[in-house]
């Protein structure tokens, strides 16, 4: 039997950072620049707005005392939504895998923390490669002989990247948002979305391009990552188009939710109409590995039978991957 996604859930914090707030930080940027370069109007953060304004989050360690919610908390909320949508009690989960770039602790794994918070005793461990987590997890699960997978597998990507942002940095301040997505996968039950194809790989020779220090802030070589992201996403889509029957009047594209301007370059290149391009980066910001799956989760009820969903995601590692799903 083919792997299926039975349901998805998402969660975001409530505090909004709009472009005016970023501009008022007086760090050398303004709304015009932000909209033209990254196309983001607002982001959702787990941090109090006054804390960001006063401290600029110069010490990410202090952010932990101020925040509304953490990585684990967002993951639990997303999971609860996914379980409810699937009609599956959380006790039936047989495996939990998690990706995060903002773990609450270095050990135990974030997956174990989530299992503990859910009150679920099942095998739990992290499978990590930052932003392309959606593709990684699906491709990773397709490695298994079907009989080796439990009935229900919970995949999670959760990140509170704003807690690692230096709000004196004009680029990073404008990009990031916080969020979590969860998806329940089964090789034993058919679900709303069947996995038709997947791919994941990396080029670790460029792994220093995007970094989150355990003790400090997020850093990236913005220009190098931007060019790589557009190029690689286009390649991924082209490969799916070559291998499968994709109709952009029917099918949906979801990219890595890093930058709306970059997504526009990609959809223009592949002639994907706006109506068939789902995204959330404009309002929520870059939620790292949660962005793309959260986008799909937020549009769950809009999926139409026979529709194909093309997910192409890129990120730290540098790593990239794709998924083709069919409703």
């Amino acid at each position, binding site marked *: 039997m083919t792997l299926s996604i039975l349901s998805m859930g998402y969660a975001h914090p409530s505090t909004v950072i709009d472009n005016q707030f970023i501009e008022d930080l007086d760090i050398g940027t303004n709304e015009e620049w932000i909209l033209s370069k990254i196309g983001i109007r607002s982001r959702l953060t787990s941090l109090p707005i006054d804390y960001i304004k006063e401290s600029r989050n110069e010490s990410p*360690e202090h952010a*932990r005392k101020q925040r509304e919610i953490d990585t684990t908390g967002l993951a639990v909320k997303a999971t609860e939504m996914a379980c409810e949508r699937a009609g599956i009690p959380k006790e039936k989960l047989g495996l939990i895998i998690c990706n*995060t*770039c*903002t*773990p*609450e*602790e*270095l*050990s*135990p*794994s974030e997956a*174990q*923390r989530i*299992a*503990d918070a*859910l*009150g*679920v*005793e*099942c*095998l*739990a*461990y*992290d*499978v*990590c*490669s*930052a932003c392309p987590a959606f593709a*990684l997890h699906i491709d*990773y699960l*397709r*490695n*298994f*002989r079907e009989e*080796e997978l439990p009935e229900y597998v919970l995949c999670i990507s959760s990140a509170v990247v704003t807690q690692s942002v230096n709000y004196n940095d004009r680029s990073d301040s404008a990009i990031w948002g916080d969020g979590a997505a969860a998806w329940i996968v089964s090789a034993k039950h058919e679900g709303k979305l069947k996995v038709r194809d997947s791919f*994941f*790989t*990396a*080029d*670790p*020779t*460029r*792994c*220093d391009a*995007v*970094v*989150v*220090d*355990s*003790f400090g802030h997020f850093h990236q070589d913005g220009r190098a990552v931007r060019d790589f992201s557009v190029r690689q996403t286009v390649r991924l889509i082209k490969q799916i188009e070559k291998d499968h029957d994709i109709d952009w009047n029917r099918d949906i594209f979801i990219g890595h939710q890093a930058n709306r301007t970059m997504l526009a370059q990609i959809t223009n290149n592949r002639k994907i109409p706006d109506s068939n391009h789902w995204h959330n980066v404009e309002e929520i910001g870059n939620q790292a590995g949660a962005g793309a799956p959260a986008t799909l989760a937020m549009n769950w009820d809009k999926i139409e039978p026979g529709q194909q969903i093309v997910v192409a995601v890129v990120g*730290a*590692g*540098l*790593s990239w991957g794709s998924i083709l799903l069919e409703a």
Partner: protein
Amino acid sequence: MYLLSIAAAEPQGLLKSSHVLELEASSGQTPSEMEQYIASAVPERRTVLPLEYISSSLNKNPREAIEIASDTPSSLAAQAARSAIEEAGIDAKEIGLVLGGSATPLQTIPSEAQRVAGALSLKTNAYDINGSSGELSLLLSNLLKWKDERLPDYILCVSTNTPTARLDYSKGLERYLFGDGAVALLLSPRIKGPIRVGSADYKTSAGRSSKTRVEIYGHIHIDDAEYFSYLSEQQQEIVRTLLSSNTGESDKFFFIDNHYPNLDKEALYSLGVHRDRHISHFDKIGSVLGTAPFITFSKSKAQIPAGSTVLLSVAGLGAGTGYVTLGVE
């Protein structure tokens, strides 16, 4: 699945328990019974930290340790990987997948596997599968369950931990227990090697996972020494299960323990582990989290005759426990 080669890497620094006992005495403290037990069971271990730094700062702020550490988890893992690749006699470019894990990474992204692969200049698929401490039993149990066509010819698995850089040397039994090191395994599902991976398993206990932690900005904590009793029970259960399913063959088994206190050797021997086939370097390397048993195997494999089966008991923080059996061909 064949283990083509295995190699370990350790930092040069040597941390003696006597040094930590002296620090404790000079602060007017008296070690607890458990601390004394661990100090005598682990008289020395490897560390990335200069002793002067430990003495002067007690590593109160682990962030400072990064600047003066002799090695990083990634550099140790890369060193082990280079040795494993050389021992296997393959071109590193042939490696199709790198998997890794660590409880003490210096960065949360990229993944440890990607950092190590990057250090080796490999343009190949790489990501982490991390229980809580880079437990290789988790990686190997994964690989044994994958479809053959999804496995490349060569797979590099790394486990690396530098817990001494995350210890508070002013208090706690943890400061007597942990040592640093890395291990790399080169595996192939189809190219034969000297050792066959027989079986592997890994399990977690969410309810117990919070009893131990590596704080992202702070230190390693084991909140309850009963944790060691749990690990000991799990280890005995592993031995009981595997030796009972191989009745009559216990004399072919070599056993490498999980390198934690409360080992209860006599219980293991009563379950069928042979006293003279129990290999442990706990007294030399301490607990290197999920990495230790494989460091010990890497250093001991020459003494294990062909036809033997090696049972490695693995435990990390976060109540992750498991095992690997290796058949020496």
